[in-house]
C-alpha cells in the first residue's frame, strides 16, 4: 500500500512541477536538459523505492505509474479541458508575416531556436522562409516552410 501511495504522489508532484516549469523546460533543447532529467530521476529514485529494494517493489511501482498514466490518457480522451490542464496547448509563434514576440517571450523561445528547428527539419536558411512556427504542447518547435503552404 505504501509503495502505491508513494508512486501516485511522486507522479502527481512531478506532473505539477513540470507544468509550473513550462513547455520549454526539459524539452531536450540542450545538453543541459538531458543532465537535468538525469539529476531529477536520481533524486526521485529514493522517494520512490525508500528502502525496499525488492523486485516486487520495483514492478509494483512501474505497474502503478503505468496504470495512472493509462487512466489519465482515458480521461484526456473524454475531456478536452482535462487534456489541456494536463498537457497544455500549442501556441503559434509565427503566423505568416506576423511574429508574436509576446508569446515567444512568454514561452521563452527566441528566433535562433525557431531557425534551429527550421534548419534541422526542413533545411531552411532564413527566417523569412518560415510560414508558421509553433511551440507544441510538448515544448518542441515545429516549423512549416512557406513553400509547403498551399
Amino acid at each position, binding site marked *: 500500500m505504501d509503495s502505491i501511495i508513494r508512486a501516485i504522489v511522486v507522479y502527481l508532484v512531478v506532473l505539477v*512541477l513540470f*507544468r*509550473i516549469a*513550462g513547455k520549454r523546460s526539459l524539452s531536450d533543447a540542450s545538453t543541459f536538459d538531458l543532465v537535468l532529467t538525469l539529476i531529477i530521476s536520481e533524486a526521485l529514485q529514493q522517494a520512490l523505492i*525508500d*528502502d525496499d529494494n525488492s523486485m516486487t517493489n520495483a514492478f509494483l511501482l512501474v505497474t502503478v505509474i503505468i496504470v495512472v498514466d493509462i487512466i489519465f490518457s482515458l480521461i*484526456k*480522451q473524454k475531456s*478536452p479541458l482535462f*487534456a*489541456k490542464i494536463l498537457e*497544455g*496547448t*500549442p*501556441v*503559434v509563434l509565427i*503566423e*505568416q508575416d506576423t511574429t508574436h514576440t509576446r508569446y515567444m517571450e*512568454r514561452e521563452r523561445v527566441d528566433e535562433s531556436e525557431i531557425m534551429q528547428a527550421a534548419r534541422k527539419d526542413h533545411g531552411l536558411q532564413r527566417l523569412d522562409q518560415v*510560414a*508558421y512556427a*509553433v511551440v507544441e*504542447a510538448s515544448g518542441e518547435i515545429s516549423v*512549416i516552410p512557406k513553400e509547403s*503552404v*498551399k
Partner: protein
Amino acid sequence: MSELRRVRDIQISQDLDFQRREWTLQRVGWLVLLAVILLAALGACGNGLLASASRRTPNDALVLRYERVARHRAETLLQIDLRTPASDTLAVWLNDSYVHAVDVEDIVPEPESIVSGNGRITYYFATEANPTITFHIKPNKLGPRPATLGLEGGPNVRFRQFVLP
C-alpha cells in the same frame, strides 16, 4: 483530445484564452517554488533556524535541544544538557510511544542499560557532573509526534516533533 481550431492555413488545438491563464498560473507557480526554497533554507522542512527548538526545566536542570520538524528516515538529534552532580548512575527517560516511532541509531555516551516499563523507556548512564547526552534518531512514522523527556526522580519537559514524509 483538445479540439482543433483554424489559425489561418493551419488546423491546431491552440487556445489562447486557456494559454493566457496558464501563463499567469505558471508565474504564480514560480513564486510559490521560490517561497518553498526560501522557507526550506530557513528550516521549515527541518535542518535550520525555523526547525531548531529547545525546552528547559525552570532551574535549567535539563535542557533539551531538538528539531520541531524532522524528516522520515533522516537523522535528527536530541541533545540533552543536564546540570546534575556527579553520581554513579543517572537516568533519562522518554515516553515509549515516541521511542517506538523512531529508530534510535546511536546514543552518546552509550547507556549502561535500558529499561522499559510504565510507558517509558529509561536509559541509565554512568557519567560525570553536568553531562550532555545525544540521541541520534531517525523517525519512522509520519505526522505529529508528542513526546516527554525526563530525569528519573526529577523534572521533565514535553516537546512535539512533526515528521515530514
